[in-house]
């Protein structure tokens, strides 16, 4: 068989063995039943949750927070990236902070946001935006910088306005870099929303995991964990699909 096929088969084999371990591990006594439930019971837990009333409300709250955070981070990130590219001094000034940004505990500012905006979804969305926006800014600056001079000259020949230059030449040229930033933004939006809900909120999938854990409802806890993972995988796949081959712009 070809190399490619061998790679795919090996990978599938690994995933299947992992799922089998998840299913039969607890039964065989390899893993404590208190820690890990068999896969079938996790699946049952997911259905259980889905039938119960609040799950959909939590799912909706989390999903639209993630999507809003992602939208704001992407648009804002590209805009800020453009501004920083235009003003290298500002970029140089902010660079040490941008580069170390991923390491900062942004959610420590949650209380300020609650006082400013109330104990609703907005602080959570803003924290996720705070986390994700830098992931978009940096690659945007890099991508804009790498737009070939030849293309910029074409724009000058056609007397394009700055907005047209940006929208029709610079941004499409920078898209591969921006695309990689966008993919990271999806990850960080999900992370930001779920982590904030997990620790500091009373609504959403993250909250569901922590509350089911605190109430020792282990099937439902695993069910909500599975739900979060499914949402994360789905959104990441969607983002991957939309950013590859510049689909978005053509």
């Amino acid at each position, binding site marked *: 068989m070809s190399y490619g096929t061998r*790679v795919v088969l090996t*990978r599938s084999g690994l995933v299947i063995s992992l799922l089998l371990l998840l299913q039969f591990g607890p039964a065989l006594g390899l893993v404590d039943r208190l820690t890990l439930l068999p896969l079938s019971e996790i699946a049952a837990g997911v259905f259980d949750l889905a039938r119960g009333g609040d799950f959909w409300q939590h799912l909706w709250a989390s999903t639209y927070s993630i999507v809003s955070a992602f939208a704001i981070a992407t648009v804002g990130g590209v805009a800020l990236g453009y501004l920083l590219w235009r003003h290298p001094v500002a970029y140089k000034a902010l660079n040490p902070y941008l580069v170390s940004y991923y390491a900062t505990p942004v959610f420590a500012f949650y209380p300020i946001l609650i006082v400013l905006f109330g104990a609703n979804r907005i602080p959570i969305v803003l924290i996720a935006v705070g986390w994700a926006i830098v992931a978009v800014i940096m690659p945007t600056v890099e991508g804009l910088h790498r737009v070939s001079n030849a293309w910029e000259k074409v724009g000058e020949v056609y007397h394009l306005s700055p907005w047209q230059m940006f929208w029709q030449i610079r941004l499409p040229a920078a898209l591969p870099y921006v695309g990689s930033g966008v993919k990271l933004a999806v990850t960080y939006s999900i992370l930001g929303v779920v982590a904030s809900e997990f620790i500091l909120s009373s609504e959403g999938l993250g909250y569901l995991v922590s509350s089911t854990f605190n109430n020792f409802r282990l099937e439902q806890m695993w069910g909500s964990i599975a739900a979060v993972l499914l949402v994360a995988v789905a959104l*990441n796949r969607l983002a991957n699909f939309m950013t590859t081959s510049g689909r978005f712009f053509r």
Partner: protein
Amino acid sequence: MHAQAVDAQFPDGPGRRGVAERVVDTAPWWVFVAAMLVWIAAGSLLPNAVASPIAAWDALAEGFGEGWMWSPFEATMRATAIGSMIAVATGLTTGVLAGLSRFWGDVLEPMFLAVYSMPKIIFYPVVMLVFGIGVQSTTAFGVANGVLPVVIITFAAVRTVPLIYLKVGRVYGLGRLEVFRSIVIPVVLPSVITAVRYGFSLTFLGVILAEMFAAREGMGRELFKAISLHHLGRLFAFALLLLAIALVVNTLLLLLEKRIQRRASGARRKGMALASASA
């Protein structure tokens, strides 16, 4: 990197630094000053949301002076230190092994990226079921958070060792270990420092997150307590302490990274010269 392009506009070479370049060099400090001004303003405009710098400083001084800050500080930093070492050691090993084998690299790469994109915090309850509430759990979660970026960065770095270097190794008849020691390691070293930087930072973040959720001690727990009790002075003291630690360690490791990068590109030029001489 754009930073290098910007640096090209403001070159570092001796004798080329004018007044303008030196002023721009201090630019990050202006941002710091501006941030302080915003903070002072916010402290007076929004007293029930923001503690003034003075209040935060007082809380910090009191904390270290009277000692109630030392215990959580030590607990968190100990968990972070141990966690980082485990995360970096495991991550480097896994990344190098996966990177050296083309087959296993291709098999595992999508899996690494898929796991990276999942929010690991939701697994913390499971970690607690295994390790109980305490420093073992927070350390374990820190490791879980920090190991994957180390793997991914190291893996990518090992995969991109230019084939021509390895051919030079073969020309010289070097054994596998020698190839690894004298070719792969020097090329990969800058990325290893990057990986260590990410490993430490994300382990630190993981430990704090875990402590905020459930722990017996630690700065994350104190931060969470301050949030719940709306103890603004302490809240800001802890938040800024955490920020400071993150920034300082990151900047130090970044400087180390840049220094190794400069030496590595020197070595690379020598390697290329060697390669073209023997080609």
